[in-house]
């Protein structure tokens, strides 16, 4: 789960990390009031959970409260990378001397958290990656003082900034640990004209698995930032991600679901249907019930891009008959005649296949292997039946 910039900064402030005194606006009028209070010369920043806001017109420097109002009016409701802007933040224009970088993130290879600092932050960070100093953190003890010294030393921080840097590094580390973050990043950590270090922008990602013990963060989750179909799937307990293609997929298991997406692309390329691809990732999880299967199929069919559906179930805990029942309950009632190709293997697979055969729905068919099922789905989406291709 990602926090918005304004949420990350609220959290930073609570840990004593200096941030600019701005405000959050959900309407142009609010933006105007905040900008006026700040003296007019402000930055208006769109709150969307994607990178590259700057390039997409999501960050504006303005010179009056009226301009701030206009900018907010322009941004609110606009989309960046498919995500609608519901909030903007208004902040005074910062007098920046230098942009540093500081973050704590889980290092998967070391299986430990790592704190990273760089003397060049902001957009320059990735241009000088060799200048990033790293210290792995003990997951029980957190950040040691000596590690902060090694960071400060490594980025050649002027001695008079060590005390402030130390406070910020410890605060960021505590913020990371206490909120079960997988990422807590300040970029840039700005050295201001007055000699203060200030967190100008921040990113926080929280471990979804730990949200049960972070009720306050869980409440802050911005559900509006998700696609409506993803919300519906989540509410049914399914893991669903919307993609650009035209073949809906329903699979049990994340690895097999990704593999099914990959095979669709692979087969489509072989057939010369380069435009074909998966319309979604959908993992039913283990032991899905008929009602979850039905909900998953409804979500897939609600996507207007979808021209065919590939169902691939390798049943361990998941039972083939349960899957078939769920599928048929939706397919029978649906007015759409979108082809549904099912491949069922494993627990109760034969019972499931028999249910589907007995239902005799013309648009629901069975396949034996994964490749065969995919070929038929690709051909169906490409406007051909399996027979046509032969």
């Amino acid at each position, binding site marked *: 789960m990602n926090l918005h910039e304004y949420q990350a900064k609220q959290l930073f402030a609570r840990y004593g990390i200096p941030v600019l005194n701005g405000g959050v606006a959900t309407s142009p009028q609010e933006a105007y009031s905040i900008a006026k209070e700040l003296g007019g010369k402000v930055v208006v920043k769109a709150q969307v959970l994607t990178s590259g806001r700057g390039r997409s017109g999501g960050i504006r420097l303005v010179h009056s409260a009226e301009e701030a109002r206009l900018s907010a009016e322009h941004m609110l409701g606009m989309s960046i990378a498919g995500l609608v802007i519901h909030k903007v933040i208004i902040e005074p224009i910062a007098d920046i001397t230098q942009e540093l970088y500081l973050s704590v993130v889980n290092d998967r290879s070391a299986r430990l958290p790592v704190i990273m600092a760089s003397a060049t932050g902001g957009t320059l960070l990735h241009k000088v990656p060799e200048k990033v100093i790293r210290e792995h953190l003990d997951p029980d003890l957190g950040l040691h003082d000596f590690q902060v010294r090694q960071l400060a030393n490594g980025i050649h921080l002027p001695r008079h900034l060590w005390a402030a840097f130390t406070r910020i590094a410890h605060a960021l580390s505590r913020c990371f640990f206490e909120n079960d973050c997988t990422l807590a990043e300040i970029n840039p950590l700005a050295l201001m004209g007055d000699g203060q270090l200030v967190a100008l922008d921040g990113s926080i990602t929280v471990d979804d698995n730990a949200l049960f013990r972070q009720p306050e963060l869980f409440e802050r989750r911005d559900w509006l930032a998700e696609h409506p179909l993803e919300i519906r799937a989540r509410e049914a307990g399914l893991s669903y991600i919307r993609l650009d293609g035209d073949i809906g997929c329903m699979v049990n298991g994340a690895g097999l679901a990704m593999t099914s*997406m*990959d095979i669709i692309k692979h087969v489509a390329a072989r057939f010369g249907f380069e435009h074909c691809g998966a319309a979604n990732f959908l993992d039913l999880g283990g032991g899905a019930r008929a009602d979850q299967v039905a909900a998953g199929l409804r979500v897939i069919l609600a996507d207007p891009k979808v021209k065919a559906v590939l169902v691939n179930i390798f049943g361990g805990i998941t039972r083939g008959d349960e899957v078939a029942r769920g599928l048929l309950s939706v397919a029978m009632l649906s007015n759409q005649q979108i082809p549904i190709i099912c491949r069922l293997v494993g627990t109760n697979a034969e019972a499931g296949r028999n249910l589907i055969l007995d239902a005799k729905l013309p648009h629901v068919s069975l396949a034996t292997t994964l490749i065969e099922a995919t070929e038929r789905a690709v051909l169906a989406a490409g406007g051909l039946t399996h027979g046509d291709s032969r």
Partner: protein
Amino acid sequence: MAILADRHTRLIVQGITGREGLFHTRQMIAYGLEHNAPILVGGVTPGRGGEWVEGVPVFDTVREAREATGADASIIYVPARYATDALYEAVDAGISLIVCITEGIPIRDMMRVRQRLALSGARLIGPNCPGLLSPGEAKIGIMPGLAAIPGNVGIVSRSGTLTYEVMYAMTRNGIGQSTCVGIGGDPVCGLGFTDVLQMFEEDPLTDKVVLIGEIGGEEEELAASFVRDHMTKPVVAFVAGKTAPEGRRMGHAGALIEGGMGTHKSKVEALANANIRVADHPEQIPELLVSNF
């Protein structure tokens, strides 16, 4: 002999009376009976000590279970909130092989568990994994027995049903497995690819190895280096997630391309550079296994 577990393994089930635990206990017993392999020796559910479930005794604590049954392996089917405690309990009781099926354990908790594992010497498979299967010898986990037959190919995988798919494809083509190990789909887990590859390299009954990876992390790249530098046995691989978008978690907590790290391309290149044959799709693996290396 297979790796990690065989017919001499004495297994207990933590969470034996739970919905999932009970279901898979039955599956494991059925597999044992069908293949004339020893079945599990006991189970643990706090507060249910003294009962019997499916013909095996239930204990309140792992320590009691171990003392009474001589168990050396444990499989954990405990819900995520209690799974860390179950892991510490297994380590504390001196269990040497721990398999954790549970999904949804916070990353930080697993980092802490790893420190204690390092101090104790116990081996952990998982969490968020399907466990392991040495066909005809031992089934510790949820892998469907029907998908596998005894043979000389070791499988190590970060995935669940995708692994079954590969096993099944091999089995249909008459290629059996020595041991199938699902190391799990979480970013922080117990044994990694290289640990298991090392065991396969040393196992006299394993002649070839299949490695099944996913996007996210660097496990596949590290495995490729290990194969290049330390393995003599041929390896075939498949990596899921070629078409997965960046920055989205693909079901598994660990299947996530972040900041351009852990891409399909990087993994496939690393594997190919280590002379590993990389399949386009799972059903291609049997033919890669039988073609000349």
